[in-house]
Each structure stands twice: as structure tokens, then as C-alpha cells.
């Protein structure tokens, strides 16, 4: 019965989304106030029903209800509870249900809370949100029903892909999804604003927390995904320019640009049409990314639902939503009045540079991701990888970082170079000093060298706005900017240091043998079989000494899972503040030797510390904005109460 309850809730939610769309469309017409009054309640109830459906699917996975096809295909009664939960979204149907649930919850929240914009714009926004939701409900119910029953319950589940049985992965997809789908709110606000031609600073202020929230989740999701790929795949790399990684990076780039342009619109009423376009593009990138992954049109490790029929369905949806929104934009953008003007040397000017550079990088990543598809249509197979993405992306990324170091020092509207000259000189001196120092001491390749110099410059530039200000009275959003920009410097330093200084050893070692890797000497102590809940493994015990110090134990494993049968390698990491020792055990080599792969990766962890700092900066800004909104709201309520009193 439980599965049927979930399915019923899903159908009802879909029907309410239909009602919300129709009521929204009719409510926008003359005398449609009665209809318009339906929109908000419909959105709230839809959100509750959808949350109920998702809760039901979670429950089915926790109980391992093997009469449900999805559970039987993706779970197993032996699995630890956390991975049973993760199984809910570690598959096509469940992740699509998560998608619509997040979207419905976001829509419900706006409907329940948001009162600042003109009601017509809100009705149009919620109508647009329902328009997008209806398509995804149709997709779920028509071709990806998560609650489908088996005619005969299965005796045992088929398990979850062993690579995915990892705590990091339990949280990586939902985090990214909240980010992807959170951008749907920006999309709906943009469409709503286009429909009613109301592009105002208020619009940007209302949209901004949603973009910030989505962007925080995307940042965390990408950071976690990168770390997961790093330690779980056992290849020692942290970014592979895989289509799916690109699919998550593209919405992040668009959202980052949107975040900055929305702040220009909110503070200065400029960049109106551009902000609207980014709102459309950001969610479009989420949808295109999801499509590329789910349709199997691109070959990728992440493609878990290769099904052309589903691909066609999503493609039609995308064509309607993205094409429709861009068409609306093309028709209406001319009628949006131009915003305030500003001089090039101003905060707005720097943010425009940031936006142009981010958009260019977005274009480069999109082109690189789609190029193999394009050439394949003409019968030529190519693969595009780091030799394209790294240098071409760097052409825009590195100058953008230069502007990032200076931009926050500039004043809005107009500034003079004389005013910021001391700060610019300080930043430049630090950058050049690091550049020269690293070049003469280490003589590393150009890209990591520039990366290190810019990391130093950005680190200095990011904290300079604190100078001469009372740290206690500094608004939280400014703290957020400082922390996030500093995080960029930290992550960039980690990337450059790991690229330039990592040391790899691949050896066939006997038990008792000692291997040198960079500052480490590593002794292979033993290789023993071990067993886990649903796997067995060969586990090597290594004693690693950093510069002849005390030995630490690391134990990499080569694991064999039995549901489904698959081999994975569990890398073992030894983390110091200045980097990580990364060890992998391979198979047995000839003569009782064991293949060991060892990497010394200086400062590699700083990449993810930086990612977390960037997200933390976003969180500070979000909390600051929301607290500000609440304060304003209670002040307005007080004024209203005082007026009402005699």
C-alpha cells in the first residue's frame, strides 16, 4: 500500500502543478484576481504532496521493499542503512523524484513567504515554476515511475554500484540537485519579470537569496564530487573534465555570474537585461547538463540511465523551456528599459569583467563538452580533455582573477585610480614577488606558476577591503565576499601546488621493502585479506615516515564486492597540513611482489578547503541578507502597527 500512497501523492502533486499553471495564466489577465488567488495555495499543497511522495520512496528503501521494482534493482537487504537511503537517489527514477521534490519545495516556499514583489510578478513567477514542474511530473509519471511494482516480489535486491557505496556519495547528488533545481527559482523569477516587464532592484533582491542558496549547494556539491572522484576512483586526480563534471561546472559558472550581476542590479539598478538572461541561462545549463548525462548521448562514467526514449522526452521538455524562455527574452528584452550607467573604473565595471570572463569560460566548457558530439555527427571521433580546457580556460580565468583581486576595492559608479593606487601596488608587488620567487626556486611550468602568483595576489586583495573598517560592525555580506574570495585564492594555490609539485611512484614492492616518494619513506609491512559487510579485500599495511619521523599506518585496499560483483580500489590517504600521501594497492606482481602506487601531493587538500571557504562565504552572505530582510520586515510591521493604532 505504501508505494501506492506515494504514487497517488505524486499524481495529485502533478495535478496541482497543472492547476497552478492554468490559474497563473488566467490570473494574469484582466479581472483574473479570483484565479490568481488559487496560485499560492496550489504551490504550497503541491510542495507538501511531493515531499510526501519522496518520503514514501525513502521509507521503501529503508525497509528494502522488494516488491517495488526500483528498490529491487538498486538495493540489497545487506546494505548499511546509510547506503539504503542513498540508494533512493542513486538511480534515474529516484533522482528525478528528488528533482521535482526540490523544485516543488522551492516553489512552495516562495508562495508561502515572498510578499515584496508586485503580486502580478509573483503570479507570473509561480506560473512559470509550475510550467517547468508539469513537464518533469509528466516525465516521471509517463516514463520513469519510481513506485512501479514487480508482478512477483524479488527474493533479493541487485545492490547498488559499489563505487557509489560511499558516505561522500550519499550526499553529493542531493547537494548538487538542490543547487541545480534551486536555479529553477531564478529561472521562474526571470520569466515572471519578463512577462510583466518588472525588472527592478527589488526583483534582484528577491531573487538573490535563491541564487545564493543554489550556488552554495552547487559549490559544495562540486567540491564534494571532486574529492569523491579523487579518493574513490584511485587515480589521484581531482578534476577530469568529464562531461558530467562539466555539467555541474556550467550551471555553477552561470550562477556565479548571476550572483554578481544580481548584486549590481540590486545595488545600482544596472545590468537589467543581462541579469535576466543569466537567470534563464543558469537553469538552462542545469537542464542541459542533466540531459547530457541522462540520455546517454555522451559517454561518461556517470551515465546510469542510457535510454534514448527518456532522452527524447527530456529533449522535448528542454526545447520547450529553454527555447521558450529565450524566445520570450528575445522578444521582450528590447522593451526592458536600460538601467543606470557607470564608468569602467568602478565596482560595476569590475563586475562586468567578471561576468564576461565567467560567460566566456562557460562557453569554452560548453563547446569542449559538445564538440565530440558535433564531430561525431560528421563521423569523426574525438575526445576533448585537459589540453584544450586548461590553457583555453586559463586565458579568461587568470585575467579574471587579476580583476577579482582589485574589484572589491573599487567604489560603485565611479572611482579614481589615484584612490586605489596604494592597494593595487601592494597586490602587484606580492604577486610579482611570488612569481619571481617560485620561478627562481622551483622553475615550474607556466600555468601553475601564474596560478601561484595570482593566488597570492587574490589572497591579499580579498582581505584588503577589511582595512580601516570596524570588523565587528562589518555587514555579514561583506564578510561573505571576503571569505569567498579568499577561498578562491586557497583553492587556486592548492591546484597550482599539486600540479607543479606532485610526485608519483609506481613500484612492485616486496613485504619489508621501503620506497621513497618525495619527503616520505614508505615501508610495505604486510598484505592481508579482510572482509566487510558486502565485500572482501586485500589490505596492505604501510608504515609511512615523513622526513624520517614517526611512522604512521596507511592501509589501502583492493576490494571485491559481490552485489553486484565489481572490483574497486580504496585509496588510503595520510593528510598533513601541507599535503596528502595517496596510496593505492594494485594486484600481485611476479615473485611475491605487490604493485603499489604512491603519490605525494603537496597542498592538494587546499583545493577542497578553498571550495568549502567559498561556500562558507556564500552562507555568510545569505544569512546576512536574510537577517536584513527579517529586520526590515519587522520594522515595517511596527510602522504599520503604529499607524493602525489610534
Amino acid at each position: 500500500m505504501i508505494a501506492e500512497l506515494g504514487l497517488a501523492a505524486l499524481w495529485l502533486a502533478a495535478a496541482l502543478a497543472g492547476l497552478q499553471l492554468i490559474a497563473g495564466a488566467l490570473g494574469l489577465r484582466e479581472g483574473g484576481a479570483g484565479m490568481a488567488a488559487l496560485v499560492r495555495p496550489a504551490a504550497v499543497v503541491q510542495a507538501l504532496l511531493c515531499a510526501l511522495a519522496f518520503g514514501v520512496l525513502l521509507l521503501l528503501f529503508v525497509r528494502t521493499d522488494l516488491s517495488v521494482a526500483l528498490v529491487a534493482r538498486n538495493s540489497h537487504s545487506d546494505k548499511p542503512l546509510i547506503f539504503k537511503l542513498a540508494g533512493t537517489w542513486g538511480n534515474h527514477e529516484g533522482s528525478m523524484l528528488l528533482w521535482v521534490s526540490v523544485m516543488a519545495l522551492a516553489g512552495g516556499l516562495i508562495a508561502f513567504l515572498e510578499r515584496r514583489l508586485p503580486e502580478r510578478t509573483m503570479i507570473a513567477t509561480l506560473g512559470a515554476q509550475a510550467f517547468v514542474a508539469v513537464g518533469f511530473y509528466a516525465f516521471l509519471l509517463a516514463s520513469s515511475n519510481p513506485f512501479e511494482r514487480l508482478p512477483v516480489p524479488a527474493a533479493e535486491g541487485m545492490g547498488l554500484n559499489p563505487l557509489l557505496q560511499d558516505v561522500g556519495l550519499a550526499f553529493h547528488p542531493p547537494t548538487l540537485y538542490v543547487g541545480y533545481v534551486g536555479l529553477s527559482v531564478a529561472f521562474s523569477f526571470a520569466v515572471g519579470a519578463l512577462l510583466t516587464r518588472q525588472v527592478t532592484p527589488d526583483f534582484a533582491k528577491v531573487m538573490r537569496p535563491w541564487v545564493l542558496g543554489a550556488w552554495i549547494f552547487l559549490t559544495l556539491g562540486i567540491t564534494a564530487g571532486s574529492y569523491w572522484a579523487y579518493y574513490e576512483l584511485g587515480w589521484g586526480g581531482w578534476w577530469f573534465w568529464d562531461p558530467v563534471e562539466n555539467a555541474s561546472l556550467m550551471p555553477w559558472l552561470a550562477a556565479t555570474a548571476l550572483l554578481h550581476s544580481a548584486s549590481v542590479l540590486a545595488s545600482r539598478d544596472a545590468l537589467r537585461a543581462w541579469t535576466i538572461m543569466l537567470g534563464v541561462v543558469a537553469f538552462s545549463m542545469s537542464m542541459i547538463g542533466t540531459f547530457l548525462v541522462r540520455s546517454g548521448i555522451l559517454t561518461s562514467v556517470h551515465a546510469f540511465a542510457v535510454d534514448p526514449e527518456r532522452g527524447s522526452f527530456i529533449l522535448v521538455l528542454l526545447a520547450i523551456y529553454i527555447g521558450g524562455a529565450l524566445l520570450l527574452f528575445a522578444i521582450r528584452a528590447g522593451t526592458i528599459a536600460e538601467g543606470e550607467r557607470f564608468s569602467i573604473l568602478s565596482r560595476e565595471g569590475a563586475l562586468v569583467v567578471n561576468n564576461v570572463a565567467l560567460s566566456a569560460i562557460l562557453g569554452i566548457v560548453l563547446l569542449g563538452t559538445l564538440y565530440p558530439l558535433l564531430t561525431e555527427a560528421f563521423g569523426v571521433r574525438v575526445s576533448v580533455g585537459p589540453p584544450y580546457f586548461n590553457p583555453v580556460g586559463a586565458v579568461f580565468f587568470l585575467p579574471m582573477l587579476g580583476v577579482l583581486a582589485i574589484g572589491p576595492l573599487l567604489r560603485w559608479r565611479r572611482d579614481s585610480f589615484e584612490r586605489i593606487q596604494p592597494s593595487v601596488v601592494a597586490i602587484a608587488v606580492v604577486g610579482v614577488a611570488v612569481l619571481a620567487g617560485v620561478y627562481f626556486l622551483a622553475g615550474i611550468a607556466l600555468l601553475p606558476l601564474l596560478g601561484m602568483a595570482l593566488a597570492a595576489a587574490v589572497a591579499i586583495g580579498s582581505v584588503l577591503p577589511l582595512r580601516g573598517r570596524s570588523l565587528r560592525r562589518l555587514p555579514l555580506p561583506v564578510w561573505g565576499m571576503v571569505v569567498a574570495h579568499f577561498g578562491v585564492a586557497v583553492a587556486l594555490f592548492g591546484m597550482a601546488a599539486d600540479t607543479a609539485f606532485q610526485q608519483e611512484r609506481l613500484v612492485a614492492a616486496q613485504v619489508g621493502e621501503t620506497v621513497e616518494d618525495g619527503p616520505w619513506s614508505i615501508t610495505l609491512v604486510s598484505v592481508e585479506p579482510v572482509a566487510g559487510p558486502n565485500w572482501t579485500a586485500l589490505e596492505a599495511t604501510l608504515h609511512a615516515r615523513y622526513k624520517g619521523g614517526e611512522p604512521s599506518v596507511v592501509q589501502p585496499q583492493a576490494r571485491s564486492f559481490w552485489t553486484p560483483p565489481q572490483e574497486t580500489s580504496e585509496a588510503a590517504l595520510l593528510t598533513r597540513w601541507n599535503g596528502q600521501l595517496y596510496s593505492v594497492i594494485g594486484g600481485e606482481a611476479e615473485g611475491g611482489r605487490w604493485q603499489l602506487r604512491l603519490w605525494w601531493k603537496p597542498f592538494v587538500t587546499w583545493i577542497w578547503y578553498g571550495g568549502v571557504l567559498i561556500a562558507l562565504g556564500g552562507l555568510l552572505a545569505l544569512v546576512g541578507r536574510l537577517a536584513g530582510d527579517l529586520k526590515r520586515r519587522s520594522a515595517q510591521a511596527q510602522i504599520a502597527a503604529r499607524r493602525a493604532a489610534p
Partner: protein
Amino acid sequence: MTYLRWVLLALVAGLFGLFAYMLAQPKDEFVHSAMIGQPIPAFDLPPAVADRPGLSNRDLADGQPKLLNVFASWCVPCAAEAPNLAKLEAAGANIVAVAIRDRPEDVARFLEVYGNPFSRIGKDDISAVQLSIGSSGVPETFVIDGEGVIRHQHIGDIRDSDVSVLLAELREAGA
């Protein structure tokens, strides 16, 4: 700026056209050799077993079209295609082979169990020849004409229905 918006829309429309077209195409997971139509690169491999000579590119340009089979004793589909290689040999095909990353005793045992249709077997311990002719796995079978030019590539094991196809390709290469 006005028409730029329409350009954006047109680009997106083109993108969706491409997606739709590619979705309709059957998915081809094979990596085809870029060397088809090219003369085989120079190589000289030592014999993989005692009772057959090794293989060089000159042996492939002796005027007679040949089948070049890329195999290994550790490869299960290679064992599966053995009966069909025997059929091809019985139909008059001259088959030469390259054994990939293998030990002589293992190759000898493999040929003892599954039969030896090969006139020459070269020993390629580092997959050098395999890579140079654009083969990405085992087994693969190439049709080489009398001048040593690669005419056709068959990826995967040779099924019953592939025998006549390979014989036809071989006849065409001889013409």
C-alpha cells in the same frame, strides 16, 4: 545587440537539432581504426611460438591478401572465435597473427587447445604493433591487401555470420 539575441536563439535551436539527430543515431561503442586505407606501418616481430615464423610488414606486402588476427591467450572471445578462424582457413584464407602481451608457453597451450589456423605469429609484448595499426582491443581482425594496405577492420570476435563478410572483403582486396 538586437539581432544578437536572435543569434543566441538560433544557436540554441541548432544545438537541439544536433541533440535530436544524435539521439536518433544508433550508439556505436567501437573505436574504429584511423589506419584503414593506409599502408601498414613498418614493424618486425619475433616469433611467438617455436613452430611458426614471426611477422614483419614485408611479409604482409608479398602480393597475396591476408587476414591479420590480433589475439591473446588470456582473451576469452579469442577462444570463442577459434572455430570461425578455422573455417576461414579452410576456405583458403591466409591468416597471420599478432599475440598481444603473452607468454610463449601460454600461446602454445592456447593453440594446442583451440587449433592453429595461423601461418605466422608475431610476439607483441608492449602492444606496439597493435596500437600502430589502430586496434584498441582483442580480438580484432584486419584485411590486408597484397601491397600491405589495411582494407578492412573487424572489431570483436568473429561470429558465424561474419565469416562470409570477411571472405568477401578478402576477395575484394585481392582484386
